[in-house]
């Protein structure tokens, strides 16, 4: 059963179309992350769901009710903003209760709801403070509390952690996840941070230019990116790509290039593999093998190392395979001198093959 249903949603400002006839269903209790770089339309989509941006065309249903023309307050949503958007002149308590008070809710009920939200978010000690007296993390917890007291079905998060420093971001990320597990509400979360997306989401919608490029579980998106864009967008450091040409031979399907001849018969093609077509083979830095293990793999290549970076837990070796840039994520402790060449190999199950022309996964 889906709580949110978006049908052919389009948002256009004059000649500029921000959302292209977008369709999306979010299940009840699901944590959906809209992921994309700035300008991809993810915030516009969230604002449209909230009722803060009008659709040019299409429909939005929340809980079976058509809310396309409804006011934000009538949609059963709570929203958390990147800039916290707390009312500066009100205390934490007043901030959280504002919506309830102007709706004319009896004082006792308001107090009970605020107390409950403050309990969940551990804000009891801060209720009498002003936003200016709070740290960034506390402010964002208050902002979440403001959504919480409204007792809504759906939570919308618009890059809620982007203004926080790295440590707080990690803490609050875990807190949001815990909150979702406790409350079981439907949550839609906009971010450009793929780690937030990977860790929080039940499903990720990767967006680009007002379209959803792929909508799948984090594992699925990571392992089987639907196209070249998603493959390059997800993962840090990004996926390595090598150009080749696909050929049907007597020994099965092979990818052939100047310094490459790879047996792709173990690769699970989405459809019938084409013949004599330009392709790009993608493989993630962490799936590279070196040494004896590399020599057993169908894909082998020479990586000429230019720079190494010790990340503490891993060692990144940046360099080139043939003419294309590549990076390997290796265990620390290896001594690799810049300028040296190492043999790398990738197990076939970790390969991704894309049509070089369309970028689609083959």
């Amino acid at each position, binding site marked *: 059963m889906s709580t949110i249903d978006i049908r052919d949603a389009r948002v256009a400002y004059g000649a500029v179309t921000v959302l292209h006839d977008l369709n999306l269903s979010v299940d009840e209790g699901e944590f959906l992350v809209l992921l994309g770089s700035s300008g991809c339309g993810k915030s516009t989509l969230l*604002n449209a769901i*909230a*009722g*803060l941006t009008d659709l040019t065309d299409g429909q939005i249903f929340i809980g079976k009710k058509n809310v396309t023309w409804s*006011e*934000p*307050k009538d949609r059963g*949503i*709570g*929203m958390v*903003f*990147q*800039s*916290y*958007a*707390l*009312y*500066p*002149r009100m205390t934490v308590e007043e901030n959280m209760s*504002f*919506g309830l008070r*102007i*709706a004319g809710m009896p004082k006792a009920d308001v107090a009970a709801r605020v107390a409950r939200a403050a309990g969940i978010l551990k804000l009891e000690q801060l209720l009498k403070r002003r936003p200016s007296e709070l740290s960034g993390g506390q402010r964002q917890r208050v*902002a979440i509390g*403001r959504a919480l007291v*409204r007792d809504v079905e759906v939570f919308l998060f*618009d890059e809620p952690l982007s203004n926080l420093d790295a440590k707080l971001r990690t803490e609050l990320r875990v807190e949001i996840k815990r909150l979702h597990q406790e409350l079981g509400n439907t949550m839609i979360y906009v971010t450009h941070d793929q780690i937030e997306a990977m860790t929080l989401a039940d499903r990720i919608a990767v967006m680009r230019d007002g379209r959803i490029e792929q909508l799948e579980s984090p594992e699925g998106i990571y392992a089987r990116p639907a196209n070249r864009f998603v493959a390059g967008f997800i993962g840090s450091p990004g996926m390595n790509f090598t150009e080749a040409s696909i050929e049907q031979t007597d020994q099965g399907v092979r990818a052939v290039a100047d310094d490459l001849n790879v047996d792709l018969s173990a690769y699970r093609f989405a459809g019938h593999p084409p013949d004599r077509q330009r392709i790009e083979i993608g493989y993630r830095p962490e799936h590279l093998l070196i040494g004896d293990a590399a020599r057993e793999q169908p894909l082998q290549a020479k990586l000429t190392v230019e720079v190494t970076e010790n990340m503490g837990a891993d060692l990144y070796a940046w360099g080139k395979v043939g003419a294309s840039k590549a990076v390997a994520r290796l265990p620390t402790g290896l001594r690799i001198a810049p300028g040296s060449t190492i043999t790398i190999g990738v197990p076939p199950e970790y390969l991704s093959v894309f049509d070089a022309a369309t970028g689609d996964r083959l």
Partner: protein
Amino acid sequence: MKPSPHNARGTKPQRLSIARIGIYVFLVVSSAFFILPLYVMVVTSLKPMAEIRLGHLFALPSSPTFEPWLTAWSSACRGLTCDGVSAGFLNSVKITLPAVTASIGLGAINGYALSFWKFRGAEFLFAVLLIGAFMPLQVFIYPLVRISSGVGLFGTLPGVVLLHICFSMPLMTLLFRNFYATIPVDLFKAARVDGAGFWVIFLHVMLPLSVPMIAVAALIQTTGTWNDYILGLIFAGSDNVPMTVLLNNVVNSQFGEKQYNVNMAATILTGLVPLILYFSSGRWFVRGITAGAVKG
């Protein structure tokens, strides 16, 4: 050891450079430029006429007297009546107070609507307002006399107040629109999600944030309205003449010798309200002017 760049250590020694001396000289000269006339006014107002006749403009009063101030306030003559500028004081208050309050209130609402409730034609309306801000008031005098007498507001207190409000609308709207443009739109969105409408957002969210801007607007408006001469002269009517118009009448009524000390005192009295406002609200004024210039 003599300090030199080679053994530099700790705080850098301050040195008076030519440029810095130049700045000080400029500051002193420009302050003198503004302070000297005020000084002459104050000392002249405290001298009896006999002392003024000696012609020592800058000399301190040898026998200071507050007589001219009392005369200026309560018994200086203009034409046949001799009750000083005090009558105009109350009139000016009666004009300024409602005009300032209303123009700030309306300006804030306009600015808020233009910043957050974008509607078709809002940009055009704003452009028209901007043009209005640069129109000389004198252009409108004749048509306004005809219109206000047509609707029976000519020569009345509500009439002159209304005109003050109208003429301040472009500037006030501009001021508040630019102020609200610096407020994150997320705040507005959050309030809408919370269920607040046009007025609730304005009164509960935006207005409490606008205190510095309101202080600046009040300062600008009070000064402008209080110092106004032409609207008061033409539209206020003889019962509601503001202090500035009275001052002019007092200064220009002549019976024999010109009472310089009384004229100076009357002028200072008339300018006192804006002056006090500036001195007491300097902090707010600067804060309002710089509001939005620096983030965070």
